[in-house]
């Protein structure tokens, strides 16, 4: 009796299409952000078998999925991220590792991907870390839909690699030389005694490698049979087949990147982070060189979540002698101190931070002191707006944001922050959807709500750039992977 009553009620109760394993939907939206800067009012978007098969402006259909006042955007594409990349997977035995693939060590089951998906990020470029001069090949991933390796995890809950050899990461500035021990006065039977030790040395290593690659290409064209996996990758960079992503924060690092581009006629380069890039925006625009900005953190929030605390500072400046096995086991050397969790915050001057960068080389790998404080005195939250104003193609990156859920640093927050500091809303949406997709070579299937594109979509409770809005539904390859409607 009860059952039959429930069954009779079911059609009235149920929102249409509750089966979240299906990959075909019809969605009626009040506001559609296409992803190329345009906003369409009242549109009907049809998804079939994981692809967008129709986008009809002004259309409507009975039974279509609809939430009043909701906005639809493409799934967000993070142009620069470290999601799922363990800090200890940095290869430090050599300073140049072009054929290294971050895809080999990315933890596809990492919670960061699930957190990103909850925030509407459906695809991301994963970068090798910046501690090598030539760091290796990045990967394009979708943040869900993959088979988890965890035997007890939900099906399709893991990220999936779309392209394991997407762009070559190279580092200018301090990261690649920081932490390298000088031969004098240090124990040298350890890979940390590698080169380079200076900013000049970093560029020297990079030039040396590219010249080797040019010789390699010339020899091969002359018919000499040879194979070198590293030079093969550099040859692809020289020909423009893969992009070279220069991590360059200070304005003179950006200028160095431009010099190197000219010296080696690199057809396809990207400036990553570009903390002071606004100073050379005109040159970047003239050379049609895109910039992927690093995350703009809310400074106070970053200090709370990531900043060193009093006891850690003490441990860093005057490390405790190694006495016990359990302390020895901790690679960071500080995590074992229980009192860190209890200790209060400590305001840090730039001077202290720079000192810490100097005394704590191992922290360089963990993102604690990734150099943003010491590299980029002229950092401004208006970076994206200033670049866009000068005509530079800007994509926004979340970097460590999704490993750090305590801060308001997710990708949509980057866009909101950019708008708050002067960027056009349409440009901000573009900078987290179609532009990074195109930058990563997947502009024909990701980053737009258009026919033929992957059905990666986010339905927001309101204007996605309003701080009061949040994702209600996230679709990935047409499957509903996040449903927050019940929290309305």
């Amino acid at each position: 009796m009860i059952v039959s009553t429930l069954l009779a009620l079911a059609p009235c109760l149920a929102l249409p299409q509750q089966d979240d394993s299906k990959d075909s939907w019809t969605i009626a939206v009040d506001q559609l952000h296409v992803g190329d800067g345009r906003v369409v009012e009242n549109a009907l978007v049809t998804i079939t078998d994981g692809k967008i098969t129709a986008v009809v402006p002004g259309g409507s259909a009975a039974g279509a999925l609809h939430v009043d006042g909701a906005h639809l955007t493409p799934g967000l594409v993070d142009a620069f991220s470290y999601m799922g990349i363990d800090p200890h997977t940095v290869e430090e035995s050599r300073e140049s590792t072009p054929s290294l693939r971050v895809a080999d060590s990315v933890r596809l089951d990492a919670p960061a991907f699930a957190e990103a998906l909850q925030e509407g990020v459906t695809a991301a470029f994963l970068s090798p870390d910046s501690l090598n001069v030539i760091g290796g090949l990045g990967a394009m991933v979708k943040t869900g839909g993959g088979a988890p390796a965890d035997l007890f995890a939900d099906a399709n809950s893991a990220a999936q690699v779309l392209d394991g050899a997407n762009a070559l990461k190279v580092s200018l500035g301090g990261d690649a030389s920081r932490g390298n021990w000088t031969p004098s006065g240090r124990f040298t039977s350890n890979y940390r005694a590698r080169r380079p030790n200076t900013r000049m040395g970093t560029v020297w290593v990079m030039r040396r490698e590219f010249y080797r690659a040019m010789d390699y290409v010339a020899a091969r064209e002359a018919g000499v049979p040879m194979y070198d996996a590293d030079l093969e990758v550099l040859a692809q960079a020289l020909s423009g087949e893969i992009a070279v992503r220069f991590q360059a924060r200070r304005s003179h690092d950006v200028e160095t990147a431009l010099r190197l581009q000219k010296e080696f006629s690199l057809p396809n380069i990207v400036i990553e982070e570009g903390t002071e890039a606004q100073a050379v925006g005109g040159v970047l625009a003239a050379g049609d060189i895109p910039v992927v900005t690093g995350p703009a953190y809310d400074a106070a929030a970053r200090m709370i979540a990531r900043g060193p605390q009093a006891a850690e500072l003490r441990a860093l400046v005057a490390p405790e002698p190694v006495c016990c096995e359990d302390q020895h086991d901790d690679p960071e050397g500080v995590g074992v101190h229980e009192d860190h969790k209890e200790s209060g915050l400590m305001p840090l001057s730039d001077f202290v931070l720079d000192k810490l960068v100097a005394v704590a080389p191992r922290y360089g790998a963990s993102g604690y002191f990734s150099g943003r404080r010491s590299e980029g005195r002229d950092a401004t939250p208006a970076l994206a707006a200033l670049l866009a104003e000068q005509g530079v193609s800007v994509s926004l990156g979340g970097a460590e944001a999704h490993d750090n859920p305590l801060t308001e640093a997710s990708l949509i927050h980057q866009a909101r922050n950019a708008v708050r500091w002067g960027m056009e809303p349409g440009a901000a949406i573009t900078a987290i959807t179609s532009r990074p997709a195109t930058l990563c070579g997947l502009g024909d299937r990701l980053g737009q709500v258009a026919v033929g594109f992957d059905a990666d979509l986010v339905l927001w409770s309101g204007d996605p750039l309003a701080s009061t809005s949040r994702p209600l539904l996230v679709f990935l390859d047409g499957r509903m992977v996040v449903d927050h409607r019940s929290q309305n």
Partner: protein
Amino acid sequence: MLFSSLLLSALAAQGTTGTASPALSQTAIQPDAIVAADGSLQEGKIVILEDGKIRSVTDQAPSGVPLTKVSGVLAAGMIDAATGRGADLFLTEQSQTLTPDLRAADGLNLDSEAWEAMLSRGITSVHIVPDPTNPLAGQGVLVSCGSGTGVPQVLRASTVQVASLIQTAVNDDRVGPSSLSGAMELLRKAFAEGGAAELPLWCFVENAEGLRAVSSLAGERPFHAVLWGELGGYAGAAAGQLAILPTLGEGELPRRAATWRAMHKAGVRFAFSTRGGNAEWNSLRTSAMAFSRFSGDAQAAWQAVTTNPAEALGMKPSMGAIAAGQRADLVLWSGHPLDATARVEAVMIAGESVYHAPPVPKKP
């Protein structure tokens, strides 16, 4: 006792091989039951041996072939998929990062007490591998634990190329690599440049990232992973594969139960190895017994110590089961080998008796 009489008859038969009829070079054994390849007991079977191999398994004794009846259950000898037993104490070459040509065969210790210990537990073949401390660690060796002359015999001196992506290999504090991706970079190069022999690839892994990366690198090569570490968090990436697993360690039983069940359900096939597992001599058998209980699949449990390791080693046609054409590596048990009350009575390798158990004193 029973096998030694069998040995005599077998020797007698072989002594006349030269000119006599073919049947005279054959011997037939009729145990109470045999353990079939699927782990089930089959009664009334007669196993015909010839030239150290199983010629056939029949229901009828052929005429002219001396038949020996033995009491007990006859089973294929167990195979340890990967071990360090029977070799030098150290199979760790630390002078270089990549040592693809290092051969465990060169580190064998034929005088080791391990051989008889293994025979007495029903293990007839072992696969000895170099320590997984280098990303490219070297090559394994397949050894028969005994022979008619009393000395273990190398069956195959170069079995597989052993690689490793566990912590000790990917975090070498002397010369690197310092990371998983760095170790993969080295492996990729070694494979692309032909620096690793064209053998099947076995890789020690302890996370999904390493497993995924190396299985895609293996490409067309036969590939098997040796799974270490916390299996529950990553073994799903081995779905559909035949994986090598350490035997049950002390105190691991409660934790492994759910994991093994889930792995079995996810379609991972097992081959047990004592490398990285329990050093207890009997652990191959006790792990199979435990697996049988947890998975409810006695067939999979028996195969995990016989046909699966044979398959992983590319030896399935010649060892791991009682079937025509297989090596006569046979163990006579007092009951089903996965029955806790059963014990080894006698062991035959390549048709020759190599071990028989001391008599068990009867209770008054």
